[in-house]
């Protein structure tokens, strides 16, 4: 039963994605143009990168609402250290290190201190962005080396492939393997399905959770680097409000909010679907206000469709059994 439902969810989102692509390319001239496809990828790059971390957390049965704030803090530190004279590679490492540290703090508060992750990360959401604010104040740093600011914005050679895409594909394959083909991934799913049974199965639940929180922080740091260069801006309110989009992307991709269920490809499809629909509507000059509504409807369809399909199937089976 459950397995079938999960399957349907993944398929339903893939079908919706295909439908959107066909419909979009039929109704607009340049939806499938190289520049637009590249923009869909680059517009969603930070969300995808952060979602790769957050999906592991949601599968664990935890959540991190502070990812966008970590992005901002990392980005601010990148700009701040670069402005203070650090070489760019060091500034980038600082950004990722700050992200990692923030993630670790979240994990420590949740596991060692024993606070709920939702409450904790609502707190650190304010805290991390607040620190970014405190450090940078009204400053914005935007003089970065050309090579780096082109990254994410430019494409590889004359192709339509944005430079950030290989990074995302690499991460995507890596995380898919990690989640679906390694003991680590299995343990992640197991903890989400039953933390108590996982303990009895010899999983070090606390350590596992800290690791996942920490690398979610790291991924947010990476997203911070991409964001900084994509907009050529390091400032405290970078990426504000992205946390809900990251979570919507995961849910759209079939990750169960109760933990224990989720796939990487589902999430990638979820992110692409949101990005494609937005791009389509923008090209059709449907204004942003309607786009908000469509995002919501999409979320509803993605959860309701598999349930309705299953209900219909079950009713059919019952009718057959009766006869």
């Amino acid at each position, binding site marked *: 039963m459950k397995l079938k439902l999960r399957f349907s969810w993944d398929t339903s989102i893939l079908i919706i994605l295909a439908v959107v692509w066909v419909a979009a390319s039929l109704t607009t001239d340049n939806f499938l143009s190289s520049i637009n496809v590249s923009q869909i990828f680059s517009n969603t790059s930070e969300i995808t990168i952060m979602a790769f971390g957050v999906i592991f957390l949601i599968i664990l049965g935890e959540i991190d609402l502070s990812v966008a704030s970590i992005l901002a803090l990392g980005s601010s530190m990148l700009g701040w250290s670069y402005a203070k004279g650090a070489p760019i590679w060091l500034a980038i490492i600082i950004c990722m290190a700050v992200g990692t540290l923030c993630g670790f703090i979240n994990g420590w508060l949740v596991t060692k201190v024993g606070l709920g992750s939702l409450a904790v990360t609502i707190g650190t959401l304010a805290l991390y962005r607040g620190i970014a604010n405190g450090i940078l104040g009204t400053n914005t740093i935007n003089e970065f080396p050309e090579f780096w600011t082109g990254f994410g914005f430019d494409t590889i050679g004359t192709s339509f492939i944005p430079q950030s895409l290989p990074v995302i594909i690499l991460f995507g394959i890596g995380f898919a393997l990690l989640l679906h083909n390694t003991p680590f991934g299995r343990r992640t799913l197991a903890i989400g399905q039953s933390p108590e049974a*996982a303990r009895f199965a010899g999983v070090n639940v606390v350590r596992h959770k800290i690791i996942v929180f920490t690398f979610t922080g790291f991924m947010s740091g990476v997203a911070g680097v991409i964001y900084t260069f994509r907009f050529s801006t390091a400032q405290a309110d970078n990426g504000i409000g992205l946390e809900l989009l990251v979570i919507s992307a995961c849910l759209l991709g079939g990750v169960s909010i109760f933990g224990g269920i989720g796939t990487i490809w589902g999430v990638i499809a979820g992110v692409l679907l949101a990005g494609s629909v937005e791009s389509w509507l923008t090209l059709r000059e449907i204004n942003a206000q309607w786009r908000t509504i469509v995002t919501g409807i999409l979320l509803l369809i993605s959860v309701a469709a598999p349930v309705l399909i299953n209900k219909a199937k079950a009713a059919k*089976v019952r009718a057959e059994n009766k006869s």
Partner: protein
Amino acid sequence: MAQKGDLLLQMKGVQKRFGGAIALRGTDLSIRAGEIHALLGENGAGKSTMLKILAGVHVNDGGTISIGDKPFTTGSPQASIEQGIAVIYQEPSLFLDLTLAENVFIGRQPMKGVAIDWAQAQSEAARLFAELGVPLDPKRQARGLSIADQQVVEIAKALSMNANIILMDEPTAALSASEVERLMTVMKSLKAANKAVIFVSHRLDEVFAISDYITVMRDGATVSENPVGGTDLQKVIKEMVGRELTELFPKTENKIGDVALEIKDLTNPAYFRNISFTVRHGEIVALAGLVGSGRSEVARAIFGIDKYTTGSVKVNGKDLAKGSPVAAMAEKIALVPEDRRQQGLFMIASVNRNISMESFDRIKGKIFLNFKKERALTEIWREKLSIKYEAQSNPVESLSGGNQQKTVLAKWLATDPDILIVDEPTRGIDVGTKAEVHKLINAAAGEGKAVLMISSELPEVLGMADRIIIMREGHKVAELSRLEATQEKVIAAATTGSKGA
């Protein structure tokens, strides 16, 4: 009010399919007032499915059911409750955040005017617990209750409903002798009040002690229905399993080696104090005692699930780090926990994922898991324990209770442990397979493994163990060798043993 002997419930040709699997292929059952009716069958025979149809959890695909002279309304637990049916499910499902009193009376709380009368609910619950001989605090939260105590609350809940037909799906699986006796007294009084009880159990001695009728099922169909006088143990077993079973506890004499596990003065003041014993290679040591005597807690402490305050655990002479199942597993200790749903299994995960969970080393290449090896591993254990499922990729929650228990055993035996701790290993397992499990445990001991077995079933304890350690209220009260041990001695020690021992 029904008269004794009135037909209360009749099921005819009842069918049920789950996807491709056929659980019931036309089962008959008729129950009369003032009768205790046992429903027997192998694991997966369809007993729980029958009861769940009556409980309104499942809807039958075919056949007819009538309650008294009215057709039975299927489809919702609520409808069943309204038709006078109360259920004790095989798997207790309490509201862990609520108090015990609330768990008993949820949805039927006594009212005073417009408000719930909490005082009355609590005193009523306390009365029910006392009747069952387990004085639980009705104001206590259900969280943290042992599986046996949970079962007691479930029983109290069913009794409080004041129903005409009471379905009991393995209510005694988690209980020890004295609670079972209390429950039997309660069942008899229900019978005297002209109610009907359907009783499912794999403990056949109990069945013969209390039932009036015995219906045996096999592969989803009724095989026989007899008054208890009209049949006997061997016949029932043959009808269930399809073959003769000569020996239930096939004890073999093993070569006993050095001390493998040494427990010294283990104390966790809330649960047990100064527990010392050893288990040697090739030896089976049983921990006996009443429900709540703290046996499971000792096992949990050894395996590192809980921390203990003082004392030590030594494995082959080396100290074992406390509070770390990872360390325990590194020393090749395995613990088959008592609560399969919460502790033993990942219910929504597939059968093969459950079985491979502790054996990644066996199914792993350099970095990645090898799914082929994983399937092969599952297949091996399906054969060894004759686990019944439709496909490896099905979630374990779709397995019957007994087959779930086998899966838990399989996943731990698959780790090939040196020290095997089993907590109620045969809970809910049918007679045929029980013998298989006992053989497996014996074989493990034969290979030189040390086995620590917790069991509430006395025949199992007496039949299997080389030594028996008896606990009472968190203290070790006696240690008996295989030759010394008798049923009377064990019960006496468990109920009245002096704590100083």
